[in-house]
């Protein structure tokens, strides 16, 4: 009964919320009212946008020494999660069978384990730093903690189901993914989709004013 619900209606509902939510959010960014810039352009906005999209991957020199943990743990978590999401064999197989109809090279079992460990290490350190540092604690909202906790649960249930022998564990993982998908568009997790337009917008604005950033 519960299994049918998780594999059936809840799965379709969560996908619909995820897809519609993301499209709606991105469209609202594009279509939304913007102040028109009346100043005389000192440079082109396109190179500025492209430059900023990539330059933001490298931490600012002045800040780097103060935020070593956030940089290291941030990269560990995001790279580990990327590898898990797109190169774990069960995920690639799932995408191939249900959505795409083609597959690509996958991580070996040990690679999957290492990617999971790297992602867990980064996520736990970032979460604890958010909680322990006086400034980050002040500027963090409940949604920030919730996003981290839900992501952790999704990763954890994925690891619990690693053997792929028990349907209960697979269902637990799928259920956590469904909660994640429903929560995603309404949370700070949206940065996975908005970081590119956000950086591009800032970069274009800087580029138009002749600022190299």
């Amino acid at each position, binding site marked *: 009964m519960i299994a049918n619900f998780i594999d059936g209606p809840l799965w379709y509902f969560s996908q619909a919320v995820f897809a519609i939510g993301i499209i709606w959010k991105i469209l609202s960014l594009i279509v939304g009212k913007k102040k028109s810039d009346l100043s005389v352009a000192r440079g082109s906005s396109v190179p500025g946008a492209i430059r900023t999209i990539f330059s933001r991957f490298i931490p600012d020199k002045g800040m780097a020494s103060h935020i070593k*943990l956030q940089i290291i743990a941030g990269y560990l978590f995001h790279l580990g999660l990327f590898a898990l999401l797109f190169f774990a064999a069960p995920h690639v197989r799932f995408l191939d069978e249900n959505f795409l109809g083609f597959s690509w090279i996958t991580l070996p079992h040990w690679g999957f*384990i290492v990617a*999971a*460990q790297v992602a*867990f*290490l980064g996520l*736990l*350190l970032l979460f*604890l*730093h958010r*909680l*322990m*540092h*006086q400034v980050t604690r002040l500027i963090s909202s409940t949604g920030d903690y919730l996003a981290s906790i839900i992501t952790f649960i999704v990763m*954890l249930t994925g*690891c*619990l*189901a*690693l*053997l792929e*022998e*028990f349907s*209960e*564990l697979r269902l637990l993982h799928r259920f956590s993914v469904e909660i994640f998908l429903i929560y995603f568009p309404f949370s700070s997790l949206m940065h996975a989709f908005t970081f590119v337009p956000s950086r591009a917008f800032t970069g274009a604005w800087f580029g138009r004013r002749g600022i190299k950033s």
Partner: protein
Amino acid sequence: MDALKRSSKTITSLNVNLSLLVCFIVIIFAMLSFSPVFAAEGKLGNSNTATHQLGVKSPATDLWRAVRNRDFGGSKGMSSTSQIKSLGANTFINVKGQEWRKFRQNWLLPYGGYFLVSVVGFLFFLYVVIKKVKIPNGRSGKSVSRLSTMQRVSHWFMVILIGFMALTGLLLLFGRLVAIPVLGLDGFAFVASASKESHNVFGPLVIVSLLLMLIYFIQHNWPAKGDIKWLFSLGGLLSKKHLKIGFFNAGEKLLFWFTIWLGVVLSITGLLLLFPYYEQTEAYTQLAIAIHAIAALLLIAIAFAHVWMVVTIEGTMDAMKDGNVDENWAKYHHSRWYEETTVANKALDVDAHVEEMSSSESRKEGVYQ
């Protein structure tokens, strides 16, 4: 003086309750020896006797016993030749697995269980008897900075990992005894699978947490003046004088080093179990499991004791929440560290004041020139 009076009151109450403590320990052991869970486990190990009670002797019994008892070239178990070249492929029947099973069921599980239950029971007894040790003179309202963000991050990182590893490890060790009656066989099957997989994934992260703890805490955990006195006076309980303690007392230092060394043992044996491909014999694997389990039980017991200390002594947890402690707590529990910190802070203040004065003087000179 008030603080000393309070501590002497605690000592008196402890002496009064010493007889209660002895009674409690005797009761715990008596209860455990009649515990149906461990008694049932003891019977599992002697399953051979159950077959004899049937009074029917299988004709194959003698044959297989003879096969099992053959001893070729000093190795226990019957040897033969095999096309397979893997380790142990030439052994027909390996009796070491059965011996290991007996050790696990007759020694490791019952005595490990007795040990853990006794420790938890003893700590609960102490919690009930001692109650909360209040900060003498109450909270002052002034705070002293004690731990940095990274120190707290590394501590809680270890807490999460050790907690998770302990939970999954205990489920793997005692799960058949404790979890099957609750979850049933099917329920326990997937819990055990999930525990094993996650235990293996999170295990190597414990090494990272040990390294972080070493980096951020080792400077406060070297032996220092007053440690021996602290140990001999049982943390000041048997001392009439108030002991002057530095950043950590000897008990906290022992906790740190026990955690590190037990963590190292757990990491090495855990890695041996994770990668059983490097010409390891079963004997080494079994030894690694035994050492891993014993070290884990010790570490869990130490962790429980640590939790009891934190819960019992008012104000201790503050340091791990926001890095600050109350001034009265610092004066009472770590007076030498408090004095050193205040002197250092005053010196910094004086330096800053002198610098400010000299810069304002030079500014004035500049103006007059």
